[in-house]
């Protein structure tokens, strides 16, 4: 469904963030993108919805080349791609409900959105989503009154109310504690399964990625160096992605964690 062909990004500073990336994400597949800081994970997903302009290459969403769209068509295309951010990126001074409804901005006209007169179907869908993530009672709270995990749930609702085909998820757990991180990852993967969404999840926590996704892509210096199932991540592969370290402990820890979770549930 999403197909990146020779996608390249050079920053003005001369840094080559992406070196001719080829990647295909079929419909409904959840994929984790791992790699060290500065490997180009964030740039990659931002090139897909063009928050960052790619230098060259193609990004095909179904039959549309996202990289070549004009601004009007780009807005239409962005509606198909929900994005979830690292620091939640909620508009803090707006209410939870406004934040969720802001996901519909691509569908409603300016004055409607300015006067907060959303169609009833949008409002109902917002209530449904908030109920799904357990935040219905918070609908009229201001976003900055929420805890980190709650904010990220609102961020998820905002992405889903767009009714997207694809979720772009940028470090969803980087600002959360370990328990909340898992809850959020579980929520995202569950919702993707429920709705048949494809997702690209940037994540630096390898253990967490292995726990929840069927496919892992490793990025290093703007190049794909690993692409396969999570159990294919051997210490050698991790060394190739991240550099020399003692990886046995990380891999063992995953097993322990799994055991913990099973015990807890």
């Amino acid at each position: 469904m999403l197909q990146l062909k020779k996608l390249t990004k050079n920053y003005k500073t001369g840094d080559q963030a992406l070196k001719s990336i080829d990647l295909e994400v079929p419909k409904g597949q959840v994929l984790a993108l791992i790699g060290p800081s500065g490997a180009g994970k964030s740039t990659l997903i931002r090139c897909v919805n063009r928050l960052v302009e790619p230098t060259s290459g193609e990004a095909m969403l179904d039959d549309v080349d996202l990289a070549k769209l004009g601004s009007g068509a780009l807005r239409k295309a962005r509606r198909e791609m929900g994005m979830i951010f690292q620091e939640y990126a909620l508009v803090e001074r707006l209410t939870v409900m406004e934040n969720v409804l802001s996901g519909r901005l691509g569908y409603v006209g300016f004055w409607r959105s300015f006067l907060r007169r959303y169609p009833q179907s949008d409002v109902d869908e917002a209530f449904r989503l908030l109920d799904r993530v357990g935040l219905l009672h918070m609908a009229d709270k201001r976003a900055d009154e929420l805890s980190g995990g709650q904010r990220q749930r609102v961020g998820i609702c905002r992405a889903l109310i767009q009714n997207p085909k694809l979720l772009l998820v940028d470090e969803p757990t980087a600002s959360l504690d370990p328990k909340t991180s898992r809850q959020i990852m579980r929520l995202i993967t569950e919702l993707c399964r429920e709705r048949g969404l494809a997702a690209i999840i940037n994540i630096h926590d390898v253990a967490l990625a292995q726990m929840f996704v069927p496919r892992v892509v490793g990025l290093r210096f703007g190049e794909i160096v690993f692409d396969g199932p999570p159990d294919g991540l051997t210490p050698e592969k991790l060394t190739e992605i991240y550099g020399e370290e003692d990886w046995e402990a990380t891999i063992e820890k995953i097993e322990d964690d799994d055991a913990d979770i099973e015990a807890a549930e």
Partner: protein
Amino acid sequence: MSDIRLDDKLGTAWRKPHFVKNPTLRWTLIAGFVAYMIAAFMTIEVDWGRVYEGLDRGWAFVLAFTSPDFTSRASDIWEGLLESIVMTVAASVVGILISIPIGLGAARNIAPLPVYVLCRGIVAISRALQEIIVAILLVAIFGFGPLAGFLTLSFATIGFLSKLLAEDIEAMDRVQAEAIKASGARWTQWINYGVQPQVMPRLVGLSMYRIDINFRESAILGLVGAGGIGATLNTAFDRYEYDTAAAILILIIGIVMALEYLSGIIRAKVQ
């Protein structure tokens, strides 16, 4: 938490919660504002005929900016400008020098209570009285000329700078100052080593900002006879010499821009 059920919410309209929650208070505020606006507009007497006539003159003034006349009153402009600059420099120097001890005295964490009250009193008086009113009184007392303007600006500088300096000292890092005190420094040494380094960059920045303000204010003191470019400007307006007025305004804007640029450089350097 669980008393809000999804089924109750579905199909109900959603409205953004109002900023003022109490509806009575909200409507009172809105009605009060509308009533005030109506009353205000009703009582403003605008002579639209006069305004319409003025449009030509306004346009003439705008045009004057394209051909400012620096030459025909060059000596008046130069004298007035020099006087403004001189007042600015002298008043800034004196004002900054006086505002440092007063600023120290107005900081609660380093001054004893009686000194604090006295200094805060001076600051409050200086801030409450506007430059132009002070200038009127000083002109009445000292006679026309730049001395009154110089005193006015010095007085205003004290109120501005002392207050901000005192606030800065009150917000400083206690630990650094205590470390100096712990080494057995006497009060003056303590100020010099414990307090001064912390507040110096901001003091320099604020002083530059105040010089800028002083220059802008010096341009109006001439209206009440306290010296500076204001008198020349006033005359130019009275005679409808828009090209000369435009020249003076351009000079003022230019100097203010230069001062802002300079203060930007100096602030970047000390911080």
